[in-house]
């Protein structure tokens, strides 16, 4: 089988899939062959470089000997060329979802469609996806370049051709000069680069990344994650990236799917997810958030005497917890407040973080003693360092007021 063949197949599938993305249950009949219009041809050409889309529909995964649904009617729809990050704590099913997509796990229900082709019953090695594992996945008896060649070798690509492609891939990840080293002689970061090059060398329809950075040092992690994003954008490969690190997710994703209990709680662009969380789990999992008491009518809440608009899906009632980000709270010295709204608080600690400062305060009015498990209500405020009141120190009295930025009540 030649590479070009495969690309065309993948591309054709993607095109068909693209055309029907508004109705994923539609069949492919009628799209193939004679009905391909000029526009569709353009689309085809476009998607050849982008790889296939993915639909995972009502996927159920139960591990043998367990009754827990590791994936519980899991649904995921990914556009061609998109980079989606599955984010969640340990045991949320994110790796299971990825491994099911790769075919490394059997699923007990639902179906998986890649590039318009139902791959549910297709074995791993016929799915045309490639995977980068957390660590230790390089073959130790092969050099870096031999590792990268492997996928082409099993496809019967000739020696000279595959060496050329492999070198190009190593070049892409900046390791051309390390081509003849064995993997044990390389650092963890270099090993993962080789693994990435190896996965890309077969021009996969979908690239799967299973916590590829979690075994690396912090500095290398940041460097490599930016590089993965750069390469992904260049090649246009549809990519699913699994991680437990929210910063990593926010940095690389087109969209992030936050997972909990074998399902996706919310899937959205990083900014949307941060600013418009749909559930409490999402709001607390990504970024810092304050749980403040308020009275809600479903569209608007009153917190510390300040009106705050609410996001869709917010609860009604009094009291409800309104989730307010630290940067959406204003802080002034007591006595300098220019409105009646706000609550008096005492500064506990000031963390200076460079461009921003974070101030931990304790509400001093004593009105909410039973809100925070019997302890005094605490509020974290984040503001640009230059807006920090001059000379503010621990023990000072301040007034904190939520800004009128949409928040979630629950």
């Amino acid at each position, binding site marked *: 089988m030649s590479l070009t063949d495969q690309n065309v197949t993948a591309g054709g599938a993607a095109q068909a899939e693209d055309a029907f993305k508004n109705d994923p249950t539609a069949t492919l009949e009628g799209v193939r062959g004679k009905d391909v219009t000029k526009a569709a041809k353009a689309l085809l050409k476009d998607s050849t470089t982008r790889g296939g889309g993915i639909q995972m529909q009502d996927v159920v995964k139960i591990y043998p000997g367990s009754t827990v649904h590791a994936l519980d009617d899991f649904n995921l729809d990914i556009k061609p060329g998109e980079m989606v990050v599955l984010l969640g704590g340990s045991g949320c099913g994110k790796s299971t979802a990825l491994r099911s997509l790769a075919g490394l796990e059997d699923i007990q229900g639902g179906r998986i469609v890649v590039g318009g082709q*139902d791959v*549910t*019953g297709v074995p791993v090695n016929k799915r045309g996806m490639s995977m980068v594992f957390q660590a230790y996945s390089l073959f130790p008896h092969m050099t870096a370049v031999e590792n990268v060649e492997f996928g082409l070798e099993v496809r019967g690509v000739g020696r000279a051709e595959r060496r050329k492609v492999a070198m190009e891939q190593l070049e892409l990840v900046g390791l051309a000069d390390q081509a003849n080293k064995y993997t044990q002689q390389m650092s963890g970061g270099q090993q993962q680069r080789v693994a990435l090059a190896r996965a890309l060398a077969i021009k996969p329809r979908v690239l799967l990344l299973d916590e590829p950075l979690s075994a690396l040092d912090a500095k290398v992690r940041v460097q490599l994650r930016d590089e993965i994003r750069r390469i992904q954008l260049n090649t246009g490969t549809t990519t699913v990236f699994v991680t437990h690190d929210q910063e990593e997710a926010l940095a690389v994703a087109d969209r992030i799917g936050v997972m909990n209990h074998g399902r996706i709680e919310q899937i959205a662009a990083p900014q949307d997810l941060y600013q418009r969380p749909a559930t409490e789990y999402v709001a607390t999992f990504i970024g810092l958030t304050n749980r403040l008491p308020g009275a809600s009518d479903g569209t608007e809440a009153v917190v510390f005497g300040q009106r705050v608009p609410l996001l869709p899906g917010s609860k009604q009632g009094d009291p409800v917890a309104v989730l307010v980000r630290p940067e959406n709270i204003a802080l002034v010295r007591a006595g300098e407040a220019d409105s009646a709204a706000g609550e008096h608080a005492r500064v506990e600690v000031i963390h200076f973080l460079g461009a921003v400062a974070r101030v931990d305060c304790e509400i001093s009015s004593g009105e909410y003693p039973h809100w925070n498990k019997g302890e005094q209500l605490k509020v974290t405020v984040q503001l640009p360092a230059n807006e920090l009141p001059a000379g503010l120190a621990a023990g000072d009295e301040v007034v904190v007021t939520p800004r009128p930025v949409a928040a979630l009540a629950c």
Partner: protein
Amino acid sequence: MKNVNQNQTAAVKGAMPPQLRAARVRKQSVIKFVILFITLAFLFVPLIAMLVFTLRHPLSGRWSAAPWIAIFTGNGESLGADLTVLWQGLGASLGLCLVTVVLMLLLMVPTMVIVHIRSKALERAIEWVATLPLTIPAIVLVVGLGPIYRWLSSQVLDTNPIWLCFAYVVLVMPFAFRAIAVGLNSIDVKTLVEASRSLGASWPKVFFRVIIPNLWQSILSASFISIAVVLGEYTVASLLGRMNLQVALYQLGQSNSQISTAMSLLALLFGVVLLVALDLISERIGKSRTGEPKEGK
């Protein structure tokens, strides 16, 4: 490209998708079962035959537990066997176990600890020497030990089998070395020593209060494996003309093979118990080594 529609209707009907991985696991477990069954049968049949052999008199075909009764009561008269030689051999072997283990520990532990802290080169030299007996077969060693033992027994010591311990320490050295080396590598001896020295501990105190307690698992496993080697040793004792358990078993086997087979089975069983214990100990070492707090998920 498959027909999506068809598959979809199948899914709607509630049929489970193909379980490819599970099928492979099933195939693997069949292969695994067949291989293990054949291997274990080969390993266990002789052991079971030994047991049956001790219970069934070979000539008369009568079943009785007489050999076992003879061993546990210490009286072999009912079978017309004199067990003195067996008790002599067993006594000698047990004594040898004790002396060999003590001598081995005295010789190996302090040396290995200090060399581990101080000198990589000397550590390598010791490793080379200590594992050398794997390359020099016991049968070869015994040819050279002959004159040495002849001189020792006539000039310095006597012909008591206990002096075999000198040769036995050499025989157990490779095994003991590995056991202790595993322990040394699993703890950071250097930091431990520096920490306790900085807290004002003297060298003997460091050794007995800090290092030994951290190495006891290795020391125990080195001792167990040495005991197992000494109990099974035949070559050196028989060729130097000394009595030990295996020599006694061999001699007894000429006159009463049932009792010697029963005793062999007991010794093998004891060896298995020792090694299961050894396995549990080394697992604990492994755990304490990987027990360091890990970050991540």
